[in-house]
């Protein structure tokens, strides 16, 4: 079930209504049933994978806690890791691995052929797998006690607002929240609905509109020149932001209506002043997951410098692979890894110099502009690999940018509508974010003291969504991850 569907518009209010009507002790049953139903709307058979992950991790964590022997604890941790990562590898990476091996064989004229499986990627598999893995690792580390209630644990793994595209929640945060008795609070419903409206604006007005132009260019790179590639890449940056942050906003809003507090996943990423800052603002739940469960176990920054830089690079390389089973994503991760290492080295070097005197907030805003621009250039460059259909296309696009500027592609007749609406949406988004970034606490339509101003602002946002949004079933990009 897509968030941007009539089905969800009926499903969510119905679940919320029943949720507040029934006694709190039965709510987990309602939410678990609703979550399974929500997932089964895509492919009923794949619910088995979620149930299998749930049961294995529930059992593994109980055993980790119950046994005293360190070796046996590790054994149960391995059971959880192998089963979850095994499922993930089989469904998401097997064909990529297989076709890469085949290509390698062909290079050496070896006639062996690794099989390619005809399987569908289960929606959101990378998200719920990482979420449940973090739980068993936390129990193993002794940071969390094992959950004794299978129902609540199953709900933690499959909670429908964040099941298929995050935010990737930690058991230490979400599990206690799910068990808490929630009462009907005006503030929660109001905040939740506002977040949902904002999410739909980002998805339907920005992401889905931009995607029409981006697809037209990126699916036919041989027909366009550098200026068009730059325009399409800028639009793609907002497409993926609108798509993913929009989904997160709807997810956080849907949970908030029922009183649950999901973590913030995006924080104005295109105002980051360096790559480290970008990753503190972009897909926060994933970057912190990688920090806590990969980067730190690798040694983090408590090792010699070259190992530290290697840890950073490896973390981002694997993060790239998490995003998709394609070399384009691996290169995307590598680019971020390289620039993160450079940014960290630069920071280390500048520590040795005299600290700069503090400047006023406004001047600080202006001073951050070169950093924002250079960060965005790097991020945009990396997005080329992320969006390109294959590595060859990515290099065609980069080659086009540097050698063949060409003319800006403006779709004929009706086609001009897509970049126009997307541009309008991006302008509005950018203005709001710039205001929040640099002029905190000043006048805001959406956070005005006057309730009528707030109400009109959100009503106009709904008007904009209905009037220029895309309603023909656009998919969320991150479902494939």
């Amino acid at each position, binding site marked *: 079930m897509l968030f941007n569907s*009539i089905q969800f518009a009926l499903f969510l209010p119905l679940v919320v209504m029943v949720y507040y009507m029934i006694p709190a002790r039965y709510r987990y049953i309602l939410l678990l049933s609703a979550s399974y139903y929500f997932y089964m709307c895509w492919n009923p058979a794949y619910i088995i994978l979620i149930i299998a992950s749930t049961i294995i991790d529930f059992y593994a964590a109980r055993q980790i806690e119950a046994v005293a022997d360190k070796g046996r604890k590790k054994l149960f941790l391995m059971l959880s890791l192998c089963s979850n990562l095994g499922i993930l590898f089989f469904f998401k990476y097997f064909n990529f691995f297989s076709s890469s091996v085949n290509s390698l064989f062909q290079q050496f004229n070896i006639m062996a052929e690794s099989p390619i499986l005809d399987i569908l990627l289960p929606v959101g598999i990378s998200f719920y797998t990482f979420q449940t893995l973090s739980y068993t690792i936390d129990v193993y580390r002794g940071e969390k006690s094992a959950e004794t209630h299978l129902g609540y644990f199953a709900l933690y793994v499959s909670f429908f607002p964040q099941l298929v595209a995050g935010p990737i929640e930690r058991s230490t945060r979400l599990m206690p929240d799910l068990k808490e008795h929630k009462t009907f609070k005006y503030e929660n419903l*109001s905040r939740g609905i506002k977040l949902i409206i904002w999410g739909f604006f980002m998805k339907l007005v920005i992401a889905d509109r931009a995607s029409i132009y981006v697809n037209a260019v990126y699916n036919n790179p041989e027909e366009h020149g550098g200026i068009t590639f730059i325009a399409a890449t800028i639009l793609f940056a907002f497409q993926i932001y609108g798509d993913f942050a929009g989904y997160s906003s709807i997810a956080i809003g849907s949970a908030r209506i029922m009183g649950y507090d999901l973590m913030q996943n995006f924080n104005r990423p295109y105002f980051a002043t360096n790559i480290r800052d970008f990753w503190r603002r972009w897909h926060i739940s994933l970057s912190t997951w990688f920090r806590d469960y990969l980067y730190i176990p690798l040694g983090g920054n408590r090792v010699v410098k070259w190992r530290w830089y290697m840890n950073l690079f490896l973390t981002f390389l694997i993060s790239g692979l998490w995003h998709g089973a394609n070399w384009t994503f691996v290169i995307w991760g590598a680019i971020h890894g390289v620039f993160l290492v450079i940014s960290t080295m630069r920071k280390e070097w500048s520590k040795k110099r005299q600290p700069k005197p503090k400047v006023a907030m406004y001047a600080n805003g202006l001073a951050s502009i070169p950093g924002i621009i250079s960060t965005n250039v790097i991020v945009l460059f990396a997005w080329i690999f992320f969006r390109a259909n294959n590595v060859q296309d990515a290099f065609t696009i980069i080659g086009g940018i540097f050698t063949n500027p060409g003319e800006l592609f403006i779709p004929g*007749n*009706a086609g001009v509508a897509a970049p126009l609406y997307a541009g309008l949406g991006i302008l509005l988004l950018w203005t709001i974010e710039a205001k929040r970034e640099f002029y905190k606490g000043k006048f805001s339509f959406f956070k005005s003291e006057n*309730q009528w101003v707030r109400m009109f602002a959100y009503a*106009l946002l709904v*008007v904009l969504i209905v*009037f220029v949004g895309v*309603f*023909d079933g656009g998919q969320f990009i991150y479902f494939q991850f």
Partner: protein
Amino acid sequence: MDTQSQFIQFARKLAIFALILVILDQSIGIGARELYFSQKTGRYARLNHLLYETEAELIVMGSSHALRHYDTEILEQNLEMDVYNGGIQGQFILFQEAVLEMLVERHAPKHMVLNVAPDFFVYQPTTYERLGELKPYYYKHQETLKPFMKLKSVFEPFKMFSKLYQYNSTIAHIFRYLASPQPDVEGYVKLEGEIPPLPEGTRIYPQEHMDMDSVAIAAFDQFIKTAKEHDINLILVASPVVTGEDVDALKAYQLLKQQAIFHGIPLLDYSKDPSYTHQYHLFHDGNHLNTEGAKLFSVQVAEGIKPFLQN
């Protein structure tokens, strides 16, 4: 504040918010409607003219092939009757059938040419999504359009309660044609430029397996029935294909021809006409004739359909 008070506060504010939304939706929606139906040129202006103004004796219908291939001036000169070109780019038989149903509520032309393509019955999901272009006409033709909107989604008729939604995505087109008017001659829009020669073996209509669309077949059937019910003399015409490829081998085209024979509707097939095969100077792209090609084709069509216009 207790739960009950919080609920009352929420319900009250939600009701106010809904009221504001309804007021904005209705008022801006009416404004958008006025703008939509005041267009002078462009895609929607032509459709509006077809549905609400033209009294032409001969109307040409179809997709971009119809729009670009039938020079109305030439047809009028050769046939000595008023002609209007109602071709709509990117819209196939489902849309054409909906337009015909709306048209006959006001005006049934004496003759109608429906330009058909060899892949008319091939299933294409975009065909259903593009039915959204019928939304602006829903308020005038609710009962006629409801079955078509349901093909897009069962929830579509409910969405139509919003006036704004009926004009979703139309505003950019309106301003685009206002800023840069698109001239037409009784609906015919010229296409300039020539296509470079295509590589040997290029096919415009690939022969790989393609699913048939039973809904499109039924719509074609209904199109013919509606035309007959309103005494419209219907003639089917297939446009030339630059490659001159064997489109008869396509199952979808075979079925279309069988349907035409079954209903006793003439089909003039120019798809393999040697006057156009590999004549790249007559084509704008692989699929469409340019102005020169359209002139030649319109003369040929006028001659071809003359015998069928006698009664």
